[in-house]
């Protein structure tokens, strides 16, 4: 048992959502993913452009007293928090507006948009799993397995 096997298994479970979920659900989820990925990129961009890496050093220095064991744990929790928030807000907006196209109405172009949407979801799912797995590796000190070089890439990028 190693992180690579968990990575493949978790990806398999998440991928089924992308294959079976409806059009509207995928849109909501993808908006949530997009907002959370964008917020992480902005976070890193601000850190790198400001030059002093204030937040990054703050989090890594608080190794013992902080609820976040490391930078990876902060990133993944931050990511999930933003994702859930974006998902709920999108869902609420779509729920009360309740306007637009009925889900049972299938114009031809929608099929292609759905495929693109699903592929987008799969890419996001891969990104999310890649974020979670280094956290597992780091927090529980698990062996990497056959995907070690890939995890090292993500791990190196985050630090």
């Amino acid at each position, binding site marked *: *048992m*190693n992180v690579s*096997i968990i990575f493949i*298994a978790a990806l*398999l*479970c*998440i991928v*089924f*959502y992308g*294959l*079976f*979920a*409806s*059009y*509207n*659900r995928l849109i909501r989820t993808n908006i949530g993913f997009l907002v959370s990925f964008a917020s992480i990129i902005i976070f890193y961009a601000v850190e790198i452009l400001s030059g002093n890496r204030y937040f990054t050093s703050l989090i890594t220095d608080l190794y013992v007293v902080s609820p976040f064991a490391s930078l990876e744990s902060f990133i993944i929790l931050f990511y999930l928090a933003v994702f859930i928030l974006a998902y709920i807000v999108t869902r609420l907006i779509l*729920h*009360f507006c*309740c306007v637009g*196209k*009925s*889900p*049972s*109405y299938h*114009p031809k172009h929608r099929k292609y948009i759905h495929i693109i949407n699903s592929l987008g979801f799969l890419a996001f799912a891969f990104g999310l799993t890649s974020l979670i797995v280094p956290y597992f590796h780091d927090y*529980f000190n*698990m*062996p990497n397995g056959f995907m070690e070089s890939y995890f090292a890439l993500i791990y190196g990028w985050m630090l």
Partner: protein
Amino acid sequence: MNSEERLLLYISYSFPELVNEQYKLASALKGSDIYFYLTQNIKKCAEFENARSKKLVSYYEGLNFNVKSMEEYVLLYSRIYFLCTQTHERYYINPLAIKEGQCSLKSIGEILFKFDGALVPFNTIIDRNGYSLAYKKLAVKENVGIYKSEMYELIDEKIKLIKDKKMTRRRLNLGNMLSIIETVFILVFIALFIFALCLTKLRDSIFASPFSNIPSIMTFIYFIAMIIYISLYVIVATWHNRLYEPVFYTRRFMLIHKRAIYSLIDKKCLQLEKYLNNALETRKHLRKDIYLFAGYNESVIDLSSLNILQKGVDNRGYNFFSAVKNISFGIMILVALAYGCYLIFLAFTQGSLFA
């Protein structure tokens, strides 16, 4: 009726004890051309969300072929003939309650209107002389009024269905209970796996190559079972939402935008009346305009999707996966129990599970 049947009818009145042919005749009716056309028409008729079409379908379902006398046979015979004519689209189509591509008629002019005590196609009313324009307009108003009341009836019926089914609030029933229990158990399964993998002193033996020792074998079996079950759960849960999404959407739409639907129908009726009056004034035949006044179309709201509430999902793939998921849930509980028992056994034999 042919002459033989007429003769049988006569004999049945004169000597009722002699005639037992009605059973054969009634069953022969099912093989007749007219019955074939009727079933074809009824199949088409059942697709329409319309009060008249529903009435026709219920008449059809009420046909009794188990006749006991020639009188009943004659009644059945005439009913089938009557229904066969009445189930043609132009008798029951409501131009406000059709969907794009659903109807084989081309124009509103082909639909039969009540006019001067008879059913007449609208294009014929345009041509008919001897009636004043005001009289024709009155007939148009009356017919549009019928469409309007039918639409109101349809909407009211759907809203009643939503409220009767208690779909406005989430209530605990067996299905909901199962989904809540499953969600809780998934968290328990994952927690047990993480506990065994990361917090116990088994970790070194688990992290060794798969199936190399007993703890590794047990954990691997548990892990595979868990992944299969979670995958099935995700498939069924998302597929369920995919199938029910038009229902959820329509339900929300009808509860939040009920007034908007009524005003949309009023507006469409006024437009239809104006359009028909204009055709009467200009004496121009109507062509290719059957979907011009579809009051609600599928792109905005699909009322037929609410039928799922009554009938349930009729999708073989979904039902199969759902059944497999329920079975695998039971198996997964057993596997988790076995794995939990194994951990407790280890704790007893080795003193403690924690390093």
